[in-house]
C-alpha cells in the first residue's frame, strides 16, 4: 500500500515538474491567452458576447478620433482617448470587417486611458470603441468612409 501511494505521489510531482518545465520553455506563457473566440467573431453581437459585454452605454467621455474619409483602407489611424476614471480596457472594432475585433488593450493602474493604433478597413464601416472603466462598459462609434480605387471621391 505504502509503496503504491509513494509511487502515485511521486508520479504526481513528476507531472507537475514537467508542466512547470513546459511553462518555462514556452515564451508565450508570459502573455495572457489570446482570445480566439472574440478575435474570430464575424459580427459586433458575437464579439461583444465573446468579451462578456451586454449592452454598453454610449458615452461622451470617449473621444474617438478617426478620419472621416480614408483614401487608403489598409492604414486607418484610430485614437481612443477617454476622460473616464480608472480605465481598465479599450477594445477597437470595425463592424464590417470579416473579423470585427481589431484590438483589445488592457490598462494596469497608472496607465492613462488613451491609445492610438492603425486598422485595416475593407469598406466604409463604423469604427467602434469599447471602454471598460471602473468595471462598467461604455462605447462610442464613428463612421469612416473608405474610398475604393484611390480616386479620392
Amino acid at each position: 500500500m505504502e509503496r503504491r501511494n509513494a509511487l502515485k505521489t511521486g508520479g504526481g510531482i513528476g507531472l507537475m515538474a514537467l508542466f512547470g518545465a513546459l511553462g518555462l520553455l514556452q515564451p508565450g506563457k508570459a502573455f495572457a491567452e489570446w482570445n480566439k473566440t472574440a478575435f474570430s467573431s464575424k459580427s459586433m453581437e458575437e464579439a461583444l458576447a465573446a468579451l462578456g459585454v451586454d449592452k454598453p452605454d454610449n458615452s461622451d467621455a470617449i473621444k474617438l478620433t478617426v478620419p472621416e474619409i480614408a483614401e487608403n483602407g489598409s492604414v486607418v489611424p484610430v485614437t481612443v482617448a477617454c476622460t473616464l476614471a480608472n480605465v481598465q480596457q479599450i477594445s477597437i472594432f470595425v463592424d464590417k470587417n470579416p473579423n470585427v475585433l481589431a484590438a483589445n488593450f488592457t490598462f494596469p493602474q497608472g496607465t492613462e486611458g488613451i491609445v492610438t493604433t492603425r486598422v485595416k478597413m475593407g469598406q466604409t464601416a463604423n469604427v467602434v470603441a469599447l471602454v471598460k472603466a471602473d468595471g462598467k462598459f461604455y462605447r462610442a462609434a464613428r463612421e469612416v468612409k473608405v474610398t475604393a480605387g484611390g480616386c479620392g471621391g
Partner: protein
Amino acid sequence: MGNPMKIRASVKDGVTEVKVLMQHEMETGLRKEADGTLVPAWFITEVKAQHQGRTVLEAQYGQSISKNPYLLFRFKGGAVGEKVTVTWMDNKGDTRTDEAAIAA
C-alpha cells in the same frame, strides 16, 4: 526573430508617452495571391510593454491591425534614462523584444 521595432519614449509633467512602430506583415489569412492561393494568416497576436519590469500596457491584436503596427500610449511616472521594453508575439509563436531609454 522578427525585425527591430522603433520605440520612442519621452517624459513630460510626470507622464511618459511611448510610441512604437513594429515591423510585421500582418497577413489576415484572407488575401489571395494572383494565382488564387490563399496567403496564410501571419500577424502579431500579443503585445506587452513594461517600464522597469512593471507592465504598463498589454494588447491583443486581431487580423484588422495594419501592416507594421503603430502604437501610442501614456503612463504615469517614468524618468529620463529609465527603460521601456516592448515585446510582441505572433500567431506562429515568433517573438521580438526591444527597449528604449526614456528621453526628456
